[in-house]
């Protein structure tokens, strides 16, 4: 799968990502990571050409639950490697999966009871929740409010893969047409990504 996808273009993008990460330009790196995921998704078997970044943005693609479940494992691993080595394991998909798996084991969370006052513990753990004075509320930060810094909680980044949603979906989730920011977390997409990551890990093991 990757052999065909890993064109020179993709290799260049990956080395560009590494460069951005080592320069600690976390925001640009996050954007590039999401771009690469979206381009991999748009690069369906019938469509041989890998779409350019502009094309991806023009079509306003986003990573839906079903899309996340079919992301190519080699690409996820490659991106994760870049993030992990640049952040010393602090950022990256593996860091997020680790946080998520710990929560799954320790906290019984019933999505049926999800409401304002009971966000999924993962959001709080990785520091994606908007801070309110008294108690955590299930509202996520605007994307620009995130901490693009190594002081951020573990698994804080990459985040844009989750933030980028269609405007309508954002609105449905109680947001302000600004993507995932400032609205309730979508557990299905988060879980799909985490499930995908754990399945990819089994392949490696």
């Amino acid at each position: 799968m990757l052999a065909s996808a890993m064109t020179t273009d993709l290799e260049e993008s990956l080395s560009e990502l590494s460069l951005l990460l080592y320069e600690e330009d976390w925001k640009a790196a996050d954007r590039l990571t999401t771009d690469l995921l979206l381009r991999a998704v748009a690069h369906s078997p019938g469509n041989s050409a890998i779409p350019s970044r502009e094309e991806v943005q023009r079509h306003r693609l986003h990573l839906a639950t079903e899309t996340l479940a079919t992301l190519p494992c080699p690409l996820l691993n490659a991106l994760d490697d870049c993030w992990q080595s640049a952040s010393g394991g602090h950022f990256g998909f593996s860091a997020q999966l680790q946080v998520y798996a710990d929560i799954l084991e320790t906290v019984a969370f019933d999505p049926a009871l999800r409401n304002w006052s009971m966000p999924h513990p993962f959001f709080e753990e990785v520091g994606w929740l908007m801070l309110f004075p008294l108690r955590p509320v299930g509202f996520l930060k605007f994307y620009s409010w995130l901490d693009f810094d190594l002081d951020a909680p573990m698994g804080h980044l990459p985040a844009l893969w989750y933030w980028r949603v269609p405007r309508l979906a954002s609105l449905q989730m109680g947001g302000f047409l600004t993507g995932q920011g400032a609205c309730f977390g979508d557990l299905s997409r988060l879980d799909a990504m985490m499930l995908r990551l754990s399945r990819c890990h089994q392949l490696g093991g």
Partner: protein
Amino acid sequence: MAKEVIVLIKIVDSGLTNDDVVGEVQYLIEDLRDLDGMSQTRFYVVNEIRDSDEIRVGIRFEVSSTENFRSVIKRLRDRLFYNPIETRFLFQFSDLKLQIQTHKAEDLIGLMSAIQSGYLFPPQYNYFLEVEKCIHTHYHLSNVDINNLKLIGQRLGLTQEQAHDLNDEVAGKYKTREEKHNYFEKITFEEFMYFRRMRESYSFASKDRWPMLEELAENLGLPKSEAELIYKHYYKDYNEDIKLKSEQQLAKASQEAESKAKAERQKQAQQAQEWRDQYRSLCREAMTSNIYPSEYDQGRLDQARRLRNISVDEAISIEVEVRDELHGGIQSAAGVDYSRLRNLLHQQAWQEADMETEAVILKALDRDMQPATAATVQRLSAVDVATIDGLWSRYSSGRFGFKAQQQVYRAQQQIQQDDRQRLLDFQQALGWREAPSLLYQGYRPYHDLNFSLEAPQGHLPTWRWSCPSLSDRYKPSLEVIAAVIQHLNGCMLLEAAATPALDPAFPTQLA
């Protein structure tokens, strides 16, 4: 009739010292021995006391033919010619003794002419030598020879009878060449017959018979080449015979050895089979309660394996067989290892076993661990389906597994005609879905499912391997469910007894 001439030579020269005399005698012996036909002659030394020392002064020897005698005299004459020493010669021809003492060579010349005339030896003897010569050159007396000899006999003054007797004497019992040949052949044949018998009773290495037979041929006056041909002929026969016999013996021995080895092999195979069976029952004992033998049992098995001379590979294959027999086989067409799934099920770790089921199915599908779709699930081979189902139903006593799910679906077919509704009802019957209400679809998160034996029939294994997400809710798509049911029906036939009778009024679309 004396055929020999006794010759005695003594050096009597007074001018020589004792040492000179001894030296001269020595030279004389060597000189004479050099002559043709004289190498076999024995020289006796004659000693004499001179000046109180016993020293060699001469020699004594016998000469048996005119030729030899002539060459001896010639040599003696030459010696005197070059080195005139006073010497005493004594020749004894039967009764006649002739003594000469001289240092002049000429004195011996007269003797030589006497020898030349042939009168020194008796005429019979000379005739005898002639006959012998004829026989040795032609091996029998031809007509020419006989006539020639007749003339010689007349010249020597022999009577007809005398000549004839001598002829017979020389020719011996076997006169013609043919007779000699036959006789030699007969002897050779007997010799080899004897040899053969000897060989049979005592197995000593065959000795070369040729030198003895060669002597016989010589004595018979048979040409050596002819004798050798006869000998070789019989020798060849004999050798072939021996070879044939030894080959037969060898063949017999090897046949015996082979049958013995075969019996031995059979015995060994039997023994090995017995040992393998013993080892198998030990394995069974060690693995009845555990999938893998405990450390203690492993040590015992290892010891038993060594005692029974079973190779490690063979032992492993026996263990695998026994394990599969006791705990369910883990065959896979896709090359997936189901041993971890078996372990988890054996431990009744239902949730982990369910997660492992997802892992093995996605690995078997080999689609980059992407969740199975209606299209890809068809690729799961019947072998793998049977293995997964076999393990689940074995450890849940038939409560879980694909077959259990199939049965639940069959039951639903009896009561629900609508395909879509039937799939929803099927999920509900499996306990994957609660009764829906107006605002609630009834799907629960994956971890809320019942991972225990109290769960409904067919509740496990879940089909999480077809789901993109689980924690929000476990909800396989209807399309996938229909495809999986169809695939299961293609892979596994439900036993008639387990299948509720189908109502022909409601033909199924998915069966």
